């Protein structure tokens, strides 16, 4: 009996996703070549985005946000896609999130950081969504970036490049 991972690996190889195998070893990068040396984020911003993205989408039996370099991807996105207004607004948003969490968040161990972010997330999605719109926006970008990665698309969403047919009703 093959393990889930072996089955997935077979499937991935069959559709030419060889780099995903590397992703499973934790050396993944979202292509094409996001910035390895950040050009947009300063070190403190990068640390915050990296830590938040890793807590929102951790490594499980599939790669997590850090494994696929979500923060590097967002750095590229802000450098290459965003205009000056969007860049400024994103810098401000990261500042707001850092202030809301408290910048000591960066020093917290994983369990404590998880607790802090869980509290903030709850406020953002229930009690005070407007006040936490910067966080919601960042969370959206992190999620989009992760699920645009090879690992997110193939392993998590089981995306198939060429379905070859339409089945309107598949029982889960």
């Amino acid at each position: 009996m093959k393990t889930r991972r072996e089955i997935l690996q077979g499937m991935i190889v069959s559709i030419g996703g060889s780099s995903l195998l590397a992703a499973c070893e934790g050396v993944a990068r979202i292509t094409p070549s996001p910035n390895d040396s950040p050009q947009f984020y300063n070190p403190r911003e990068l640390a915050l985005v990296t830590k938040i993205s890793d807590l929102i989408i951790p490594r499980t039996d599939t790669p997590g946000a850090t494994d696929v370099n979500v923060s590097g991807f967002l750095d590229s996105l802000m450098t290459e896609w965003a205009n000056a207004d969007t860049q400024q607004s994103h810098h401000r948003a990261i500042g707001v999130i850092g202030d809301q969490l408290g910048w000591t968040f960066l020093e917290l161990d994983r369990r404590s950081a998880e607790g802090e972010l869980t509290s903030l997330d709850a406020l953002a999605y229930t009690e005070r969504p407007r006040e936490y719109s910067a966080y919601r926006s960042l969370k959206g970008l992190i999620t989009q970036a992760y699920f645009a990665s090879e690992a997110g698309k193939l392993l998590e969403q089981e995306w198939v490049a060429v379905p070859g047919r339409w089945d309107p009703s598949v029982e889960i």
Partner: protein
Amino acid sequence: MTDFDAIVVGSGMSGGWSAKELCERGLKVLVLERGPEIKPDRDYVDQLPPWEEKNLDRISQDEIDKHYFKQYPGVAYAVKESNKHFWVKDDDHPYETVEGTEYDWLRGYHTAGRSIMWSRQSYRMGPQDFTANKEEGVAVDWPVRYDAIKPWYDYVEEFAGIAGNRDGLEQLPDGVYQPGFELTDAEKFFKAKIESAFPGRNVIQARVAHLTDPTDEQRKLGRTNCQARNRCHFGCAFKAYFSSLHATLPAAERTGNMTLLHNAIVQSLEYDPESNRLTGVRIVDAETNEHRFYSSRLVFLNASAIASAMILLQSKSRAFPNGLGNSSDQVGRNLMDHISGAGANGIISGFERQKVFGRRPGGIYIPRYANITENDKPYTRGFGYQGSASPVGNAGGQMAGIGRAFKEAHKNPGPWRISIGAFGEQLPNPNNRVTLHPNRTDKWNNPIALFNVNYGENEHTMLQEANKDAAAMLEAAGCTDINSNSVSLTVPGNRIHEMGSARMGNDPNDSVLNKWCQSHDVPNLFVTDGSFMTSAACQNPSISYMAFTARACDYAMKLMQENII
């Protein structure tokens, strides 16, 4: 002796058909395409996996401001970083609107035109669409009835390949179809509820120009089944959806009779008053600025409703001081599009344990019922709805929670949402027009387009009612969390169904073309893009352009054989 038997201006949806039909009848045909060549191996990006897309496939914001300031806002769902070369750069191809008006002129200049970017919905016009003007005293009567065009719909559908169901509706006649894309269970449930609660309204499968059971002829052209990838806006390596590039132009090419010339911008049609015939076409080369003339016995204009009208308006002579074939003063007038911006969506419960496999090209269609099966409306004509029901799935990260549970929640299809949006008919109005800008030209020294289009009371009223109807139908189907925002009428041109600028009619005094899409004024001129449409109906129009083009080509050939032209 002319350079060619026929010249076809434009290689898109209808131009491809003109090329095919005339070449197959033995004419030597020159096809003039104003844009560069599209080579699928080089230019299609349909096989690019999502993780290789740059920046989530978003065009940079600065680039949008510089090059795509009309195209991107107009059609953001289809204009991406990877396929932006399918769309014109607005700074290279400017146009203007009269103060206080707006117009979206959304275009692709290249081989096959917009037939490689279209949304592929393919519905016949019905008998009522050809009689409405006459019955209501609106504009002029169509010189054609449904029965005259029916065999030509059959003909083009067989060749193009349309997937759909035969639903037996008089107002939306059945055609020649390959198997359709089956409705989801939620859509079947919705269909049953609507058809029971609103007798006379129907929910049917979308009819789309995708192969699901290719004919031998389609296979010979290298076309194969739709793979349910939903990558159509990026091209299709499987050649599964109809485009000029993979269907009509190759069919023309294989006759050995076609010459396809790129970067050839038509500036005018040359007219000889003595013979009352066109003698040929003047072009400017988009890359070299070289001016050339090609002679022919016959000209088919297929440049799009706006560009064809502009070519006629630019072709001034002593005999036609207001533009060629424009003795009626109707060229450029009656510009129509379809209207959207009304609809509703809501959660449809009971299907949470289901998901779908594959990504089909179309969902559901609710054919027009207003003023057909229901005659209590405060407006004339009507609309159809396009829509679908599908799992909500990944909501772009906008759900509470972090960590493993949040990550894995994205595997769940979640609740199902049904969404329907109206496509309504715009009435013809001679004041809605495109003209040549009086003093501004493009970089080839051609006048740019100046639009002056406004919606009338009927359009506004219709969409308000379409919004209410949509919400009422979702309520009747038991949907919850229904969103039916206030109507936001689309900008004219935004549905990319521009038409009507050289309408057909019986009387040369008030129409440009006769029932064969032939100029009343100049017998060897045919216009078979959306220009000929005497009214807009509410169906997506491409399949009608194809049918009228094939019919016009057949007629033109008869005239040539009889030496009339």
